């Protein structure tokens, strides 16, 4: 089996984004660690912010050429690494293990539902940014055409 050829610049962009995403997530987790009986705010916050940003970048770069390094850096690198699936699952496991069943159910449901809404909000924000072109760019007063 032959491996796919990959652009080393693209991998470097993903790596750099991964460094940034990991440091922010772990930094926040260290600053605001929680017990299994509490809402895991640090993980929840990075997952929501990452979903919002990924929605925005996905909408922004979906028509861009694949050789662009911005999406690998911002999307796969920063957003992909800032957010985490495994930590959320471990938190759910520890909640269930500790007998906090209602909290576990709420955490799973709210994370998925709100994460989806934040992603859609990110896509929508990019769409609106594209529509509201600044006045000075839409028509120049020098044209004389009102």
């Amino acid at each position: 089996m032959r491996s796919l050829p990959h652009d080393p610049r693209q991998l470097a962009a993903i790596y750099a984004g991964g460094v940034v995403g990991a440091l922010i997530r772990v930094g926040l987790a260290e600053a605001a660690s929680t017990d299994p009986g509490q809402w895991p705010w640090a993980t929840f916050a990075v997952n929501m912010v990452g979903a919002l940003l990924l929605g925005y970048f996905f909408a922004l770069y979906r028509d861009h050429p694949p050789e662009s390094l911005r999406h690998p850096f911002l999307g796969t690198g920063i957003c992909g690494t800032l957010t985490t699936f495994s930590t959320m699952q471990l938190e759910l496991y520890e909640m269930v293990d500790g007998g906090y069943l209602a909290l576990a159910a709420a955490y799973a449901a709210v994370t998925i539902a709100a994460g989806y809404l934040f992603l859609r909000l990110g896509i929508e924000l990019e769409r609106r940014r594209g529509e509201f072109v600044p006045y000075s760019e839409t028509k120049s007063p020098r044209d004389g055409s009102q």
Partner: protein
Amino acid sequence: MTAPAWIAVGLLGGVAAAARFLIDAEIAARIETPFPLGILAVNLGGAFALGLVAAAALHGQALVIVAGGGIGSFTTFSTWILDSHRLRAGGLARAAWLNIGLSLVVGFLAVALGHWLGGVL
């Protein structure tokens, strides 16, 4: 956390992000399906590994580096949600729900299995 520990978190986070991308790309190139199998495999594998590491003999900074910098970076929440959205937007609503449900339920079981195995070892 010492400065070298933070450097290790950053370096491992970069490696984990690149590994996630490469595994996802390899699976996508081998199996032709709109279903995001690559990210599913990455997330389930990471959930198992995190359960294992959390129950095993890792503590303190070593646990933060491996669990937070490595495994936490390898798996992703945002791409999982984006993939599900793209399935739904592409008219594959059932596949989108399957991606959500399967990841959530099997991911939980993977953590439990890893945790059990980590305790036994």
